């Protein structure tokens, strides 16, 4: 077939389809999201979002036990959520091949940390495969399914942002049939009671020795001899591409694709054949530690940064220092500085209404945030919350936070804020405990009917699933009521109605104990919402405007102070949501487009 330009995520989907993957599940998370979105377009594979990564991996592991080739995909921090099933599946092994994709994010392009999930493979005692470009994503995921079945192990398929989101040429292969393996009851393998687990642990250790033996000769691990053996480089994943770019054909490479268990013999052979040994890897010194354990001195993390994303320039500066090629004319004058341009809540975003109402009560509340678009509300001018740690942590951490504040005599009410998708992901247990323990917390669910930040994936609250089937939407408010919280402590508001939203917040502040506000309005970028708002905008009456700049405090990208006047700068951007009209004390802003 003709080569096609695919991202790593698209190529993983293609490869999984070719491998006969029959069941796939994921929770959306940058940079992994597009794997399932693309896999769902192929036939013969049942693709669904799980409400969190643990659920997604458990859907996949159940399918594997049942005899299907199965895949679960998630971002790196998602694997923390799914670590529980991963670590025990290592003991149990598989029936149908099981591949777990972890998409790491060195450089924190879209994440709260840059953890290196290669370290999970030895902990979970599962095989690990790392691709370095899109074609390897396709071929290695096929190899990963085969490896999983051949060695009776789940395979951790570890990608990084630049592998996931770079496009390179792929030659599509021929798909095999999703041949199902027979399911036979086998409690000695899959029912991990202590007596079984003790036996399985020994078996895993034996399996890993066999896997390491295989890794020494696997085509996924290869030596590329250069024109010289002066410099030898051990590398894997995207770091291989950077190393090739910098050191070219002059150096020799041990390019590792099967990176747990690491191939000791192959590493020894390579290390003994070169004069100087470099280990080039992004993140933790994972390969370097092994090389040193084998007794070889090498240059690794002393020159290659531990923090941040790697690129060829960084390697060049570290290993081949020379005057930087950057810069233009000599003795050029200093340039003006570009203003910061942080990502912001979109014009018309319902979250802006919620944060605007909350901001008017700043003296009485402390906000606690979570992971999602609404996390952007931490920035000025909204400054809607004080901290955010990880998915679903706002409700649960607010229980302890409110306790600590109360104990120090701080009377402010804690408002814990998360979105609908995060609520389903891991917010529900926190809500249950807040209600059950009588925590003095207002739990706020910013329900915009979709997983917005990652590009509009379905949630359990939507009426369609990933494959386009009509499904039962799970009712957020009914779930809240099911905790037993009295109805007078539950409010459902439209966040673009500032008066109503503010009134609900005032009730929550006044009430001692748990309170819930469901702030409900669909994301403004949803296609049908955007369509319904077409041709609507607001405009400023310059005769009435007194330049008080209240409208600028909502942080809307559509309204600006330009040449001494407040203007709706871009009527295409403005959705006519009317929030600026509500905060204007002089009635100077009105609807310009068709009136709703």
């Amino acid at each position, binding site marked *: 077939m003709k080569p096609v330009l695919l991202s790593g995520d698209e190529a993983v989907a293609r490869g999984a389809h070719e491998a006969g993957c029959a069941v796939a599940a994921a929770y959306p998370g940058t940079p992994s999201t597009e794997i399932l979105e693309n896999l769902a377009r192929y036939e013969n594979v049942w693709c669904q979002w799980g409400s969190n990564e643990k659920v997604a991996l458990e859907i996949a592991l159940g399918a594997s036990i049942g005899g299907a080739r199965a895949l679960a995909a998630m971002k790196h921090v998602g694997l923390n959520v799914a670590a529980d099933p991963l670590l025990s599946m290592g003991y149990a092994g598989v029936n149908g091949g099981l591949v777990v994709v972890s998409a790491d994010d060195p450089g924190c*392009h879209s994440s709260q940390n840059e953890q290196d999930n290669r370290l999970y493979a030895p902990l979970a005692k599962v095989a690990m495969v790392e691709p370095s470009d899109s074609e390897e994503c396709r071929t290695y995921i096929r190899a990963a399914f085969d490896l999983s079945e051949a060695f009776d192990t789940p395979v951790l398929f570890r990608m990084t942002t630049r592998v996931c989101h770079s496009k*390179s040429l792929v030659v599509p292969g021929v798909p095999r049939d999703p041949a199902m393996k027979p399911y036979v009851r086998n409690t000695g393998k899959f029912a991990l009671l202590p007596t079984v687990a003790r036996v399985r642990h020994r078996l895993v250790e034996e399996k890993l020795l066999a896997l390491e033996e295989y890794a020494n000769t696997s085509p996924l691990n290869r030596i590329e001899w250069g024109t010289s053996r002066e410099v030898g480089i051990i590398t894997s994943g995207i770091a291989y591409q950077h190393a090739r770019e910098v050191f070219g054909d002059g150096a020799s490479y041990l390019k590792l694709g099967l990176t747990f268990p690491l191939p000791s013999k192959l590493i020894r052979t390579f290390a003994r054949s070169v004069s100087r040994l470099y280990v080039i890897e992004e993140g933790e010194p994972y390969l370097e530690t092994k090389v040193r354990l084998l007794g070889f001195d090498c240059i690794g993390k002393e020159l290659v940064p531990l923090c941040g994303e790697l690129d*060829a*320039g960084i390697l060049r500066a570290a290993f081949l220092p020379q005057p930087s090629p950057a*810069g233009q004319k000599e003795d050029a004058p200093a340039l003006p500085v570009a203003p910061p341009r942080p990502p912001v809540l979109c014009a018309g975003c319902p979250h802006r209404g919620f944060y605007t109402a909350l901001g008017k009560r700043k003296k009485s509340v402390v906000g606690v945030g979570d992971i999602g678009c609404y996390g952007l509300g931490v920035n000025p001018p909204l400054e809607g919350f004080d901290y955010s740690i990880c998915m679903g942590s706002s409700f649960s951490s607010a229980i302890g936070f409110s306790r600590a504040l109360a104990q120090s005599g701080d009377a402010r009410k804690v408002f814990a804020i998360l979105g609908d998708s995060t609520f389903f992901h891991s917010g529900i247990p926190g809500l249950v405990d807040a209600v059950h323990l009588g925590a003095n917390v207002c739990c706020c669910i910013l329900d915009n009917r979709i997983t917005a930040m990652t590009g509009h994936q379905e949630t359990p609250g939507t009426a369609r699933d990933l494959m386009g089937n009509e499904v039962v939407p799970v009712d957020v408010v009914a779930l809240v009521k099911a905790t037993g919280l009295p109805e007078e402590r539950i409010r459902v508001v439209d966040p673009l109605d500032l008066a109503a939203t503010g009134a609900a917040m005032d009730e929550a502040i006044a009430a001692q104990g748990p309170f819930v506000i469901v702030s409900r309005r669909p994301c403004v970028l949803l296609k049908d919402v955007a369509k319904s708002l077409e041709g609507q905008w607001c405009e400023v009456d310059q005769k009435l405007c007194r330049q008080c700049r209240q409208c600028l405090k909502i942080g809307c990208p559509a309204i600006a102070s330009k040449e001494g006047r407040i203007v709706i700068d871009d009527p295409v951007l403005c959705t006519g949501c009317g929030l600026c009209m509500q905060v204007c004390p002089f009635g100077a802003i009105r609807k310009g487009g068709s009136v709703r």
Partner: protein
Amino acid sequence: MSGREERNILLVGVGGQGTILTSKILSQGLVDLGYDVKMSEIHGMAQRGGSVSTQIKYGRKIYAPNIGPGEADLLVAFEKAEALRWFPWLRKGGILVLDPREIYPVPVLTGAATYPENVVESLSAVVENLRVAPAAKVANELGSPRSQNMVLLGALVSLLGLEGAAWKDLVARFVPPKARDVNLLAFERGAALVMR
């Protein structure tokens, strides 16, 4: 491809300006012309009105997908202040194509920061090869502000001498059907654009 084996293009702008779509079409055209191509984009959080960049490398054989500081042969800024932000990525002797369109970031809107003045003048004192491409203005004249990206694509194809690919077919394939005609027109206007 005289001299060096590869070319690095960096497209920068503001989330929502269509830099990714432009890069997709440009990359596919380069594949059709027989080059090895890698294109790298960052999405997720940066989409929401933040500073965005996409990177295209093409040549005989490409390894690393991303372009570091001082490595871009061509820097294409869809917005004026973004040209300043990404200028350090341009290599010495590289070309800067700049659309003088201004999009104020929220810190400027709220008065926490100021939008820089005399950007084009300052950059022209520093960059040897600066080309001003008023693509947003052309797109506005066509009644389709969103087609700024296709004007710039047309301009790039001319600038790079890549006319050999079926660019119009690619544009038609990648843009939404209802916006096809105006985008094709935008591409044509861009290809004929005189850059100073």
